[in-house]
Each structure stands twice: as C-alpha cells, then as structure tokens.
C-alpha cells in the first residue's frame, strides 16, 4: 500500500476493527479511512463496487468476512467479475483481490466453517489461491496484487495463528498457477492445500515411521490448477491420495482425479483415494471433528492405496 497508492481496501470491519481476525489491524491508522474503508454490511455491494473501482483505475482489495457469506456476492463474483474480461474483449481485466477467511476447524458458528472453493474454480475467469504458510501468504498476495485479474484469496482461518514462521522482508513472490512439492517421496503422492497441508505433512511423518515415503504436494493455486505437478508426481509414485475439507462430490479432488486418469492412468498402481468432507451440510461444533478430514483419515486413505 505504501508503494502503490491505487490500492484501496474495503470490507466489513476491516478498518477500525482491523478485521475480525485482525488481518488488517493497524492499516487504517497508517493509510487513513479513504484507503482502508469500513463498508456498509453488504457483500454484493462490496464486490460490485470493487469491480467499478478497478474499472475506474483503482486496485481494490476487498474482504468477505467469512466464506459462508461469499454466496451473497456470487452474482458479482461469477457473473460480473469472472466474465468481464471476456465480455469487454480483454479491455477490462479487473485487478481485484477478494480476501476471504476459509474453512473449518475453529469451532465457529454455522456458515463460518465451509469450503466452497469449487464454486469459484468452476467459474471461468477467476484465479483462486490459498496459502498454507506465512511465506506463501505474502508471496501469493504480492502476485495477486500484480496479476491485473480477479483473484479470490482464500485464507485458511484454522492456521491464522497456528503457524509461526519467518517471512522474507524482501519483495518476495510465489508464482500463481504453480503447485509446490512440499516434501519429496517415492511411494505415494498426497495432494492438499490450505490448512489440510499440515494434516498431510503429519500423515507423511507417521507413514515414514511405517516405512512408506509420501510425497506431499501443496496445490497453492486452486485455479488455474497445476495438475501437471500432480501428474508428474503420480508418474513417479503410482499412488494418489487427495485431501480436502470440501464435500467430495465435485470437490477439487474430482477434477484432479479426472486429469490424472486422463494423463497418467497407466502409471497408477492403485485406485485414487479421496479423503474429504462429506456430501452433507457442515455440522456445528459438536460434530465438526467427524466431518473434517485429519491426518488419521489421510493415513487410513494412504494405507488403502498402499495395500494394492
């Protein structure tokens, strides 16, 4: 924001309050209430005006307070932002970043724990990213701001305060559209993103103790999806486990599995295993632990593919 005075941040409680997760804490004091703006309570309003701000030459960073409320802005996100580049034959690329706290695991109320990334990945014209660690949060954000296209920036709320790591002070970027091999292995591939990456890592640790070497891939960008990285890994390991919080049907695991089947079927030594949330409404806090996949369920999935 210091370097680019076109950046304007807008959303519910992002200013004086600093966001309900304090992500924007201190920014209004530093940059003033014309650049860090508390809006009326209206998600569609936030995204729709962000589109206009971008078309008018600003670089808006909008916040939707919880992923459960992104549905109120889906016309503006999917029909408007996602299509504008095509509809204007490339004239309005619309650099808009929409930050959204994402996913479960914090015993929050209803509609504060969902993972609706499929809706956005299924929409042409949107870039969707999700960091799994502090360094990627910075690197992906800098790239998102510079992309000149709409980016949905999913922030796994479970790891807001769970991970401490040094973040480079420099102009540090993490390329959009590229997955990362977070851990090398040779017996099976585990693909995860966001908060699930920690679970995948923990599963890999335990599998290591059992004598199985798991390669862990952090997808990082959900759209455009770097399925090449996954295909390449599967060609090496022959086994694939995909872990995500979202419901299984048409979760991103479905698309990844399809692409692997299309491009590397002959390399597969076992059926692809999806360790996911269920095709049921995300339950309230008392049953949340049973809905969300964890390292134990990933291990169970891994043992299944390893047993072939």
């Amino acid at each position, binding site marked *: 924001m210091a370097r680019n005075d076109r950046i304007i941040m807008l959303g519910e*409680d992002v200013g004086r*309050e600093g966001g309900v997760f304090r992500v924007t804490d201190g920014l209004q004091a530093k940059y003033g209430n014309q650049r860090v703006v508390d809006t009326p309570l*209206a998600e569609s*309003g936030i995204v729709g005006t962000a589109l206009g701000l971008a078309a008018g030459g600003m670089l808006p960073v909008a916040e939707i307070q919880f992923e459960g409320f992104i549905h*109120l802005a889906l016309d503006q996100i999917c029909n408007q932002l996602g299509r504008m580049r095509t509809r204007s034959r490339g004239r309005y690329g619309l650099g808009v970043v929409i930050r959204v706290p994402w996913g479960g695991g914090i015993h929050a*109320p209803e509609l504060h724990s969902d993972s609706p990334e499929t809706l956005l990945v299924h929409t042409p014209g949107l870039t969707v990213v999700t960091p799994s660690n502090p360094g990627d949060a910075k690197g992906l954000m800098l790239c998102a701001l510079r992309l000149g296209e709409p980016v949905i920036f999913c922030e796994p709320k479970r790891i807001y305060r769970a991970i401490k790591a040094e973040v480079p002070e420099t102009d540090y970027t993490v390329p959009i559209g590229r997955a990362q091999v977070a851990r090398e292995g040779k017996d099976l591939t585990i693909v995860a993103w966001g908060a699930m990456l920690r679970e995948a890592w923990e599963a890999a640790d335990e599998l290591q103790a059992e004598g199985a070497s798991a390669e862990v891939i952090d997808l990082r960008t959900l759209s455009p999806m770097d399925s090449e990285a996954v295909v390449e890994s599967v060609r090496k390991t022959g086994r694939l486990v995909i872990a995500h919080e979202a419901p299984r049907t048409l979760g991103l695991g479905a698309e990844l599995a399809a692409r692997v089947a299309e491009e590397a079927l002959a390399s597969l030594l076992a059926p692809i295993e999806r360790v996911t949330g*269920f095709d049921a409404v995300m339950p*309230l806090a*008392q049953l949340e632990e*049973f809905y969300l996949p964890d390292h134990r369920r990933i291990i169970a999935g891994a043992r299944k593919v390893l047993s072939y």
Partner: protein
Amino acid sequence: MYFERFDPMRGESLQVLGPEGRLQEDLRPDLSDQRIRELYERMSVMRLADRTAMNLQREGRLGTYAPVYGQEAAQTSAAFLEPLDWLVPSYRETGALFIRGVPLANIYRYWMGDERGMLFPEATRVLPIQIVVGAQPLHAVGLAWAMKLQGEPSVAVAYFGDGASSQGDVHEAMNFAGVFKTPTVFVCQNNQFAISLPRSQQTAAATIAQRASSYGFPGLLVDGNDLLAVAGAMQEALADARSGRGPRLIEMLTYRFGPHTTSDDPSKYRTDVELEKHKPFDPLLRLRRYLKGKGLWTESEETGIMARSQAEVNEAVRQAEAVIPAPPSDIFAYTCRRMPPYLARQQDELLAFLKSRGGAGHG
C-alpha cells in the same frame, strides 16, 4: 394511532415511558400495570439467561454467542404475537425466542454446537436461527404471503438489525411485502452497531424507519428501550397487518451493551465513556422506576425475582448439558429425504474409520 401520529420523515419517534420512569398517559398502549410487572420479570430472566450464556462461553461450556444485553425491551416485542403468528429470527434473538416460548435449553444447546437445539417446539412457529445477516426477512414475507393465500389471520414477523438493513435481500423483502401487501411486520432492532460499524456509517439516511415510505407502507421509529413504546407499536403493527392493511416497519432504537459476540472486543471501536452514557437508558432500570412509583416493585421483591430467575436459568443449563451428544451419523441423516447410495457409503466409511480407531463417537 402511533403510525399516523409519528412520522420518521419529520424526525418524530414514539416514547411512552421516559428514562426517569414517567409514563405519558395519552400514549399508553393496551397494557395493564400487572402485565408490565409480569413482563419485567420475564425480562429479568432474559437478562440473566443471556449473561449466563456469556459466562458459559468463558468457561468453555458454550461456543460463540451473540448477546442481547441492553435489547431486552425490544426483544420483548415478541410477547405481542398471537399463537399462530410466525417469528423469523436473526442470531441475536435469545430474548425474543424465550418470550415466544422456545425453551432456554434449546437455545443453549444450539450455541453449544448441538444442531438439535434448533428443533424448536413446532407450536411456537419460530423458524431456525438465521446466521446470514439479512436473509430472513424474505422468508417472513413468504410466510405471510402463504398465510394470506390460505386465509389464515396470521402475521409473520421478521427480526433483523441495523446492519442487515444494508443488504439487498432486506430491500427486496420490503419491496415484495409492499407489492403483495403481505401481513408482514418488519422489526429492525437498531442497536447502533454492526460489529464495529456505527449506525451513522451504515446508512446516510436519518432513520431506517423512513425507508418504509419508499416501499409504500408505514414505518415508525420507537424508543426501543421503552417497553411501552415497543408494545404499542407492535400491537398496532400486528393488528394492521392482520386486518389486511399490509406490512409495517418498526425501527426500535436500542443499544448493544455487550460485544457483537463472545469473539468480539468492543474496545477496538467504542469507548467505555460512550457505553456508560447509554447505561442510564437501560430498559429494565426504566421499568423498575415506573413500577416502584406504582408500588409494584421493591428491593426485597427484586431479590425474589432474581432467585426465581436464577433457578429457571440453572435448570435450563442443567437440561442442556445433560443431553447426550449426537452421534456422527447425525451429520448425514437430514441431507435429503432419501439418502443416495454414495452418501450412505460415505457414512459407512466414516463409521468404519471411527470404529477402527476405537469407539464410534465422541471422546
């Protein structure tokens, strides 16, 4: 009489009982002193039940909770619904639900993370608590429309707040209600904050009540900390809606004494000085002054009220905590009328996994 007499466009609002407890007799609604005394006692239970939820959260016995502290008079508007009327609540409606007859134990269970708490007694005609800000007024319009189509003399009452008034859905709800002349009463509790955003930044309009005129029906601004103003406005709005005169909007101006929820820290956006400025307008304090003047309240009676309230609330907590947690299969049971085979397989998969790690449920 209130809706005609007090025009929000002219800056007028209804107050019957002044902050010092003096009652303006010519504005008095159909509410006996005995009934006021009864409602005062229910409001005392309401306040204690609310504070108890906050305390339970601090002790880790209840999840995130949205308190109604300071809004007890506005919440008591729900006391004036007829048995067959519908109540469509937001998530900050513990008092209204309680007054309507929803057991406190249900409300506690919901906030404890037990979905089954939301299964309110059917006869209360209360829809499940709404989490999305501003989604529910449309449902109240649909309910009211259904009542009208079926010739039932029932009214549907939508509860929402000043924050919700900015949502497109709330605009659409009022517009539909006006067009189809549905028996809907819109109750906007303006507690002056949407989390951190003060009402002055929520809309540039002077009041929310004045919006009604743009939808073609009357709106009224009332002192939402004045039980008698709330009662009068509610009685009239319900009667008007019931008799086919169409929807009504009541803005109840109140003040949120507590945080937005247990996750919120109001010191980020308001000072203690500001909060203290509003404390003298406490709705219970005001009623107490009035009742004392009428000889209907004494310090020793208050001790009795508090003891009875405490017993009622303690029993609700006991009931809520005595419930055995739902089994994991509860996640799947209500997804659709007939469970598709792939969902049944997902359920089997989870239950088998839980069994394999020992024990098929909590713990």
